[in-house]
């Protein structure tokens, strides 16, 4: 909507712009610089063109990490979104219990990422961890340090534990906005529980659900801290996701050129996917408004 304009508001944005320039734009430019040059230190740069990009695109190591990353994001989304919806549907709608549940649900979201990793690292240990010990006592051969499958399972369960609440809370907010009359009408129409979900709750949750999927996709695609603390990317490369691999490459091996090219491509992929999401979302909004 067109309002009467004045330009004073820009002054308020200026400090933020300056801050963002220092914290984001300048480092990003440094990365761009590294991506197209070769360096041996001493601030000496040799033009490398697209060499690093070419190397990275054909690197099987990167392919492996990307494959694991996509698999991880897919599994995590496939579990967290339906589970979050399910939890939201079953949360108490009002009264004392609803506030209590809300607080409990919010707890995992408040814990720092590295602490989450540490909690699960200890939790899963066979010698002193409650989970590991119990599983072993039950006769299951569980060891996330040695067994890739166990490591994967632990990382996924950890992420589900950490983030399902976010999806659930967002969905819960969407559900709260449905007027009671809809449920009443559905009861009168003798709609089944499934029909109520399919035709009333799901359409009303659509908006927040998209945001939830977007957030969860971006976060899971960039996951670093928790698996790094838990498994360090192992055993072998089993849980080495893109960002872990990137850090290994840049900090561990000091391959700055390839790492910079890698991070630029990584950045572009996330940007692209987010943009697709954003377009889909806004076009859906527009379609709704236009009708």
């Amino acid at each position, binding site marked *: 909507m067109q309002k009467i304009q004045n330009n004073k508001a820009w002054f308020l944005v200026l400090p933020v712009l300056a801050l963002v320039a220092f914290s984001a734009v300048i480092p990003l430019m440094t990365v761009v610089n590294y991506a197209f040059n070769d360096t041996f230190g001493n601030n000496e740069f040799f033009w490398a063109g697209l060499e690093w990009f070419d190397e990275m695109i054909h690197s099987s190591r990167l392919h492996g990490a990307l494959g694991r990353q996509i698999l991880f994001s897919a599994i995590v989304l496939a579990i967290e979104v339906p589970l979050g919806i399910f939890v939201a549907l079953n949360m108490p709608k009002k009264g004392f219990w609803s506030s209590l549940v809300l607080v409990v649900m919010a707890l995992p979201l408040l814990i720092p990422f590295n602490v989450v990793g540490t909690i699960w690292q200890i939790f899963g240990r066979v010698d002193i961890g409650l989970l590991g010990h119990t599983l072993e006592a039950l006769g299951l051969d569980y060891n996330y340090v040695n067994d890739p499958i166990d490591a994967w399972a632990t990382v996924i369960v950890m992420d589900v534990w950490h983030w399902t609440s976010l999806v659930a809370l967002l969905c819960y907010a969407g559900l709260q906005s449905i007027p009671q*009359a809809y449920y*009443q009408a559905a*009861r009168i129409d*003798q*709609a*089944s529980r499934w*029909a109520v979900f399919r035709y009333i709750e799901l*359409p009303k949750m659509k908006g927040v659900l998209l945001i939830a999927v977007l957030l969860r996709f971006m976060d899971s695609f960039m996951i670093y801290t928790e698996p790094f603390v838990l498994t360090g990317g192992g055993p072998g490369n089993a849980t080495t996701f893109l960002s872990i691999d990137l850090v290994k490459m840049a900090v561990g091996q000091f391959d700055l050129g390839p790492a910079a090219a890698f991070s630029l491509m990584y950045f572009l992929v996330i940007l692209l996917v987010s943009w697709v999401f954003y377009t889909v979302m806004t076009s859906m909004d527009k379609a*709704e408004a236009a*009708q």
Partner: protein
Amino acid sequence: MAQITLENLAHSYSAHPKSDSDYALKEMTHVWQDGGAYALLGSSGCGKTTLLNIISGLLRPSQGRILFGDRDVTDAPTTERNIAQVFQFPVVYDTMSVRDNLAFPLRNRGMDAAYIKTRVDQIARMIGMEAMLSRKAQGLTADAKQKISLGRGMVREDVNAILFDEPLTVIDPHMKWELRTQLKQLHRQFGHTMIYVTHDQTEALTFADKVVVMYDGRVVQMGTPEELFETPAHTFVGYFIGSPGMNFIDAKIDGHRAMLIGGTQVDLGAHYGTLAGRTRIGIRPEHVVLSDQGLPVTIRRIEDVGRHRILRAELSGTPFNIVLPEDAPPPGPSPRVAFLPGKIGVYADDWRVAPQAVERAA
């Protein structure tokens, strides 16, 4: 379809009601005929929505029983009551087509597909939405959505009752005329028992055969529109029905005369004996005429409202409204009014008093 019986029904939202005022709905017993069109009329907070929720099964009354036909449904959930309801704001399933919306209650009950198709087509014709059957419900105007809601309410033939909760709130004035007529026609065609909750007297009076006027958790009068207009049983009904409402003037009642403040007398045309409590006479603005003789009034302002004129006046110190036809001559400089014979009501402590049977003919 069924007759609806409310038996000693009362409801309080507090768990341990102590006094009368704790009851949102005061004890009442009523029988509503099968196939009747009823309106529950009252201002907000009068208990009409509470009563509707009890009938639909959303609320369990704190005392009394409710029967559909011979069956006690006091404890039956909404789904078992076999009713339909249309809400204040349109409730449509946005992702479904108009056809699917209308068919939904039938499909859920496992009706035969061929039957569903004919029935939906029939309803769509009645609400004038045949052309839009394959459209998605999302994005339709509020009018259209409310028509779908009405249609969904009508689609089942076997319902015990159809409840309407202020269904025309979001509708533009012109569209109201159309939807109201459609409702009336649907009622005539299918003969469902209909209960219509509203605060709008025009909607209530034009829709219903019997209007139930509620005030402060009580049914103050149940009657035909004509009865409510001509002989309101309570001053609230007099005030609530009609625009402007009935004029009430404090008066001492003595036999067939009313003595107003200041000593003027009005002939009541019937005998009332002597009455105790606060006594008033009531006269509709439509039943007042300007005349050469009669009671002097002071006119404050004249409102031209198109089909008639409203004279805002004062009579013996109380605000007093007079309705004049569009083409009537304006009042002179010192206007006087007379009341149409037989149209004066007498009220003691807000309730209408019936005239005594004529005891002395001579």
